[in-house]
């Protein structure tokens, strides 16, 4: 069978028609189906169909990318909001973490810290004994350590006004007698002014 015969045979198929009156019945059935669909479907289903039809007719790659980007941005924002926040403490109502061994975020440009910085970071322990390490680090200790621990030697007292108070405390015979009644200081809190600021330490780990 050659191509022409095949094409002629195929063209005869256009004469295959449905029974008479079929197209009139088809129109009636289509109308009935439309009414049935409207009555059966809920408003929610109709709205969902309209939504799908709208986006299928406006289906462009740009819209897909924009929608995906917006979805990712929203998911990231919600994920960040749901991250657990650190509980607030008495010394820092904002909830910033103060490590027991980590010094506060003070990065002195000189080996000796600035008095203002010390006063702002240690408001509770303004009367706490101060001592300087041999490396020039200012360290405060709670009261209970005064009784037995030897203090390291103080150096460069002239640069710090609070050092004079420490000198007075150290020269007294009985630390417990010379010291006035002070409010209880939390033993867990210890401020260490180091050359390396607290903020330098990474707060996360892989």
């Amino acid at each position, binding site marked *: 069978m050659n*191509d022409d015969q095949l094409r002629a045979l195929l*063209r*005869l*198929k*256009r004469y*295959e028609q*449905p029974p008479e009156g079929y197209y009139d019945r088809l129109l009636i059935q*289509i109308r009935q189906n439309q009414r049935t*669909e409207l009555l059966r479907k809920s408003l929610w289903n109709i709205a969902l169909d309209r939504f799908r*039809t709208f986006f299928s007719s406006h289906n462009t790659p740009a819209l897909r990318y924009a929608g995906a980007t917006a979805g990712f941005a929203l998911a990231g924002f919600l994920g960040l909001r749901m991250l657990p926040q650190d509980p607030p403490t008495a010394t820092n109502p904002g909830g910033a973490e103060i490590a027991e061994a980590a010094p506060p975020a003070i990065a002195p440009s000189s080996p000796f810290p600035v008095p203002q910085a010390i006063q702002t970071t240690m408001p509770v322990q303004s009367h706490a004994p101060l001592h300087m390490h041999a490396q020039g680090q200012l360290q405060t200790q709670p009261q209970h350590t005064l009784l037995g621990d030897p203090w390291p030697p103080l150096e460069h007292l002239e640069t710090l006004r609070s050092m004079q108070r420490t000198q007075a405390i150290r020269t007294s015979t009985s630390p417990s007698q010379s010291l006035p009644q002070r409010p209880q200081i939390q033993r867990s809190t210890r401020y260490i002014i180091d050359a390396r600021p607290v903020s330098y330490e990474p707060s996360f780990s892989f």
Partner: protein
Amino acid sequence: MPPSLTQALPTILLPTLPEAQSPCATGALAGRKSATMQEQDSRREDDQLIARSQNGDPAAFDQLVVKYSPRLYGLVYNMTSNHEDTNDLLQDIWAKAFRSINGFRGRSSFPTWMHAIAVNMSINFLKKRGRRSHLSLDDIDANVEHDKEFMELTAGSTPVRETNLKELQKRLNEAMQKLSHEHRAVVTMFDIQGMPHAEIASILGISEGTVRSRLFYAHRQLQAFLGEFHQN
């Protein structure tokens, strides 16, 4: 200057009109013009009906159904080869068209748009139906006996003349079912419905070259399927 030459000058200077050379060319050109004008009129009518449908006139949509159902029936029936499935599919196709009519922007013609919906839904239906055979034959219209190609086929001492027409129809439907869905769609639109390659490419979303290659492959397969029947 000789008088014969002066008499011939006006005719030499006049441009020759190709349409006036032969009556056959004139008739063919007039036929092409009328077909183009018919297409334009049809498109204008479709635009008006679509606009009315989008404004909520159900009668306009009914007119579109009446106008394009025969063409869609032929497409879907030749894809499925089953009358009941064709009926169900046609209702689903028109239901989808009714839901989507507001999204029709006129970038393509309405028949192209409807054919695209019909082809996609038919292919999806056939994929779900699987390979189960559901052939059912529609009655062949009586006008086929007056068809020139039918007379040529049945003339002469060929086996086709002695074959029952129903048997031929059945064999052809079986051969069509052996094609893949995509090849069958191309054969249906080009060979049976007489659509041009460009329109088929637009409906299926492929290039014209792909349409031609699919047609070539489908014809080879049909020739192989029908060759044995033809020899017998």
